[in-house]
């Protein structure tokens, strides 16, 4: 049987990816340029018995997401920059309470209201450091409509597997772009569900580390009764100020993601075998970079593309290894050097890093990247 093919927008593909992953709850608040995700979910969720709610604000949407997830329901919200800022409070709550949920954040400019319909890639630091305190961060940065679908499924999988919020962040160009998409058949992509407790209710502790760094999570409304709090907590879920427990719990929460970086990190290497000028790019910028690499090759420049698909955790190990054999990195991005700084931070000064930054609401075009390659070759 032929697979279902469609011509679809990135935001719509994200909504369909969520449904494929088994999402049954959406809470959101209208914001450009992500609203299409909410619109599709409002139409599709009730058809499969799921629930859609438009909340009074972004903070409430993030809160409702966590409440729904605690009943064992996979939950999604969508937003963009200003809304992402508001959601940070409860993203932190989901981090410390270890409640799975997915945030689909379409990147537009900022700070503040910025340019609501212009593209940007300036939320990548918010995705890691936006909420206060130490906490794990998983952030995915798809570059095509097909990839938005697949990475949304993966966002749910990682969220369920590691009991942590996951942010998927297409930039506005990828989110509003229309492309061909081939829908995976049910069962074709892996779908992961959180681990349920294997112990009887009276033995259950929501943060029982004897099961490893990711303890099983029970659901409200079953015969497992437990307490959830945003305070630093003990393995039974109740607050504590005991120094040794707080230290160990904080470290475990970060470690459960960092120690599994190899499982979470995904990237694409394009013409990298002999490349000595490497473009590190993501999202729509990586599409310009691919074009520029092809052009450079025609002109005899040994250019390659290292495309980030997972932004956090960052592929530090891979870039450090690369830095020992390349002449230079080029880092085009629609912000003023956020990714560039991260690259510099992990390559120990082994190679120069040349940034190309745009925050004017216009995409970075291949010519800009090609010019930079000629300059540094």
């Amino acid at each position, binding site marked *: 049987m032929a697979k279902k093919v469609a011509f679809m927008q990135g935001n719509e593909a994200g909504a369909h990816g969520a449904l494929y992953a088994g999402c049954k709850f959406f809470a959101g608040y209208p914001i450009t340029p992500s609203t299409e995700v909410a619109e599709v979910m409002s139409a599709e969720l009730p*058809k499969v018995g799921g629930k859609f709610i438009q909340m009074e604000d972004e903070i409430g949407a993030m809160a409702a997401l966590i409440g729904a997830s605690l009943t064992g329901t996979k939950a999604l919200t969508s937003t963009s920059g200003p809304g992402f800022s508001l959601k940070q409070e409860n993203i932190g709550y989901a981090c410390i309470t270890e409640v799975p949920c997915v945030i689909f954040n379409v990147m537009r400019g900022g700070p503040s209201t910025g340019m609501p319909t212009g593209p940007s890639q300036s939320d990548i630091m918010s995705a890691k450091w936006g909420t206060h305190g130490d906490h794990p961060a998983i952030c995915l940065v798809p570059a095509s409509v097909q990839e938005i679908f697949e990475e949304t499924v993966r966002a749910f999988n990682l969220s369920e597997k590691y009991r942590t919020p996951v942010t998927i962040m297409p930039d506005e160009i990828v989110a509003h772009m229309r492309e061909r998409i081939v829908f995976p058949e049910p069962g074709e992509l892996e779908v992961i569900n959180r681990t349920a407790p294997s112990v009887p209710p009276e033995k259950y502790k929501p943060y029982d580390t004897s099961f490893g760094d990711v303890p099983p999570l029970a659901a409200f409304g079953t015969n497992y009764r*437990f307490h*959830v709090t945003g305070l630093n907590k003990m393995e039974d879920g109740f607050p504590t100020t005991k120094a040794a427990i707080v230290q160990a719990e904080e470290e475990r929460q970060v470690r459960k993601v960092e120690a599994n970086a190899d499982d979470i990190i995904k990237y694409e290497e394009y013409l990298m075998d002999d490349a000595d000028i490497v473009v590190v790019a993501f999202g729509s910028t990586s599409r310009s970079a691919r074009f520029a690499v092809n052009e450079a090759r025609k002109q005899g420049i040994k250019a390659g593309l290292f495309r980030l698909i997972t932004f956090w955790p960052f592929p530090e190990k891979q870039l450090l290894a690369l830095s020992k054999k390349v002449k230079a990195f080029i880092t085009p991005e629609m912000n003023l050097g956020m990714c560039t700084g991260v690259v510099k931070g992990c390559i120990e000064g082994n190679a120069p890093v040349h940034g190309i930054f745009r925050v004017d609401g216009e995409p970075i075009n291949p010519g800009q990247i090609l010019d930079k390659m000629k300059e540094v070759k």
Partner: protein
Amino acid sequence: MAFDYDKYIRPGKLPHIWCPGCGHGIVMKGLIRAIDSLGLDKNNTAIVSGIGCASRLPGYIDCCTLHTAHGRAAAFATGVKMAKPEMNVILCGGDGDGTAIGGNHFIHACRRNIDMTYIIMNNNIYGMTGGQFSPCTPTGAKASTTPYGNPDPAFDVAKLAIGAGATFVARGTAYHATQIDKLIAEAIQHKGFSVVEILDDCPTTYGRRNKFKSVIEMMNRLKDIAVPVKAAEKMTPEQLEGKVLTGVLYKQEKPEYTTEYAKVIERAKGAK
């Protein structure tokens, strides 16, 4: 035979954090008696709170309990109730948590008329942070941030709830302990968003700044200002000056949110 609270209190979690003389414990016992009188299944009952002294209440009760972020109880609870409408969802918290930082979530939960019960313990102050004025601090009162007297007018929580669309609104006081469980039980049984405001006391951060000589004096004040709705009908405006009505203040049948959403699901499933 004395009521057995231990059936609902989590082993090892007492003593509670509340100061001597605080009314929150009286409210908690009322809630427990209400849960017991209705025979609610503990597995199927969620108690959700925000931040503050009153919001520590869920941790002591052996149900599914969710101590959320400041002001957000109603929004978290909405997620729980929407995802699992068969659950009994009870919210609790203080006046600052519910009507200041949580004001938006509060009025919209009222507007949706989603089937949950919100117990607001109104002690007119932010107690946990040391006694700053809240939207429910009376004008002129002293707080740590109103050393010259509070210039702000105060909210009437019950009127706010009624105005925003809640379909059951009641008021009691920490003094009238035996009324609390009855009001809460009736609120839980009501199909729709129900609000129970309990006038409470904070001797530590409110009483001592506002010339109350003892907890007894604060409790006596609650006794003196409370007038049951029925009794008030026979009183003149002059007699009601400075009084507060107690009992069931408002009750109306209106479509409930999760029931309405179930119809959305039916329509969506039938749509071609």
